């Protein structure tokens, strides 16, 4: 039954996407519901399976590796599945009001949206390097289609730049896969550990794959495409791009690194990746500090926050793994909340230029509240999920006496506070607030509720951490230091 449930988790959204293209437009609403709503229920069986036996393997069509393609469900991929399902459903609430079935873009938006969803589910399940390439392409192409959807020139340009870099990245990854297959004769990620020794060819292959994935994850200095793409996309698209799409690339680097080549001596390379992460945190935060548009501040904040996910490589311990996984989760919730709130503000005010947003807190209090809740988690203030993630990082660095990384995490939090308080100051501390009539309030709608739910989720993540951290601990890669 678990196999069937997993198959449906990938194929139901895919079928619904096909249905949304082929079937009459009056059926669109039904298709959307069919592709999204049953997913949490479908995840129940796989969850029970993982809690009971840890790892679950699906041999597609019954062929075992090395000939066949397999899926592997383990605690980490289960966490990613839940994240993707939860995040996509909540953001879909918003999309439902920004792209209702009678919207002129709806018949293009929903098929791409559902395919992106299916692609990410397949990606986190896949254990086959080439199958991962296919899912990566599916995710990238649908994501770019969604960015370009409304056809505004800045979004089209951003989509084009993203496409060229993403295709280059995919080819680097594919070249690596080809080199690995040439040497080992297998494509199964979890069989590499025993078969792949660090010769120059294998090192080249892994390096090519990681560089490709770093481009897709927009890690400094390969981040150039991200701010324009995330800052100009429609609201729900920005939210899911920052919350999930860039993260799945980093998830793949973790997989390759900790599961694919656990026996290699990687101290130097880990240090290099950690330094890239550090540069991303500092550069992204400073760039966010000088942006003039709200969505661009949030986009550069993503560049910065992604850096934390690379600190896992030099810190490499149970605590760091828990911290990084929790950061992935809480940043996803917080960033989705902020992007959705920003999209509502952009729609309500007609602009998201910061200097014109004075007074928006009176007109759209719910959205500003959601923005602030997300901000609290990004800054890492207690008791939010972001705080817990940063705390775990600090503890990991403390245990290893890695004072440099410890300082970096602390400074990163301060920088985040700086660029987010700048936004909140513009929005809330304006002269009209003290003297003058309160402005007319917009009636909150489902779009604001979706932003608020995600923002509350980012805060509540600080309270309900135990089961998730236990799950991460149960899914640690083999041979990781305690």
């Amino acid at each position: 039954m678990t196999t069937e449930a997993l198959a449906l988790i990938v194929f139901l959204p895919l079928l619904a996407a096909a249905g949304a293209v082929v079937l009459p437009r009056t059926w669109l609403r039904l298709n959307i519901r069919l592709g999204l709503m049953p997913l949490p229920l479908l995840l129940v069986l796989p969850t029970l399976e993982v809690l009971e036996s840890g790892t679950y393997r699906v041999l597609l069509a019954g062929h075992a590796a090395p000939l066949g393609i397999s899926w592997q469900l383990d605690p980490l991929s289960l966490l990613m599945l839940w994240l993707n399902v939860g995040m996509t459903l909540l953001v879909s609430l918003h999309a439902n009001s920004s792209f209702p079935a009678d919207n002129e873009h709806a018949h293009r938006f929903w098929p791409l949206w559902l395919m992106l969803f299916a692609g990410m589910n397949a990606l986190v399940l896949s254990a086959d390097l080439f199958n991962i390439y296919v899912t990566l392409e599916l995710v990238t192409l649908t994501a770019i289609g969604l960015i370009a959807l409304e056809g505004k020139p800045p979004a089209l340009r951003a989509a084009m730049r993203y496409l060229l870099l993403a295709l280059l990245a995919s080819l680097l990854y594919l070249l690596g896969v080809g080199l690995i297959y040439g040497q080992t004769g297998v494509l199964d990620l979890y069989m590499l550990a025993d078969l792949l020794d660090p010769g120059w060819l294998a090192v080249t292959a892994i390096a090519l794959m990681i560089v490709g994935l770093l481009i897709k994850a927009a890690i400094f200095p390969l981040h150039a495409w991200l701010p324009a793409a995330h800052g100009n996309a429609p609201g729900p698209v920005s939210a899911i791009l920052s919350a999930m799409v860039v993260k799945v690339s980093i998830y793949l680097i973790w997989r390759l690194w900790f599961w694919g080549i656990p026996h290699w001596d990687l101290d130097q390379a880990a240090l290099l990746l950690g330094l890239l992460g550090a540069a991303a945190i500092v550069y992204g935060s400073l760039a966010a500090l000088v942006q003039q548009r709200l969505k661009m501040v949030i986009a550069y904040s993503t560049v910065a926050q992604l850096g934390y996910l690379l600190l896992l490589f030099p810190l490499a311990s149970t605590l760091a793994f828990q911290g990084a996984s929790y950061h992935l989760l809480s940043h996803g919730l917080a960033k989705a909340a902020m992007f959705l709130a920003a999209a509502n503000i952009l729609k309500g005010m007609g602009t998201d230029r910061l200097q014109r947003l004075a007074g928006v807190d009176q007109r759209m209090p719910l959205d500003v509240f959601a923005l602030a809740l997300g901000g609290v988690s990004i800054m890492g203030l207690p008791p939010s999920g972001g705080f817990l993630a940063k705390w775990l990082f600090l503890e990991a660095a403390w245990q290893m006496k890695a004072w440099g990384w410890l300082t970096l995490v602390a400074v990163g939090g301060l920088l985040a506070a700086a660029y987010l308080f700048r936004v909140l100051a513009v929005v809330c501390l304006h002269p009209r607030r003290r003297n003058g009539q309160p402005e007319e309030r917009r009636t909150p709608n489902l779009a604001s509720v979706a932003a608020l739910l995600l923002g509350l989720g980012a805060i509540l993540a600080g309270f309900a951490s135990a089961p998730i951290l236990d799950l991460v601990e149960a899914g640690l890669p083999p041979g990781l230091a305690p």
Partner: protein
Amino acid sequence: MDSATVYVLAAAVLFGVGVHGLIVSVHLMRKLFAINIMGSAIFILLVATSAPISGQTDPIPQALVLTGIVIAVSATAFGLALMVRMCQETGNASLAVEDEPENDD
């Protein structure tokens, strides 16, 4: 020089041509072609890995190349469609022109 070496060398040369084209070209169509050339280089390399070692040809790389070609065709079609739309909206088929700063003040 055995045939596998010829394949690998050809792949290396083509990949280099593709990278050069991607970086140097300005027109988006040329950039998309360059990416396709890089893709072909990788496909040649994959075919080379299926060379018969003990009389048996390995079918897996050929299946991978077929899938890869399908993906390359779709990605190229998508890229070209995006380029056409961009050209219609902005009158320009290159990314060399910087985004004009928005003047909504």
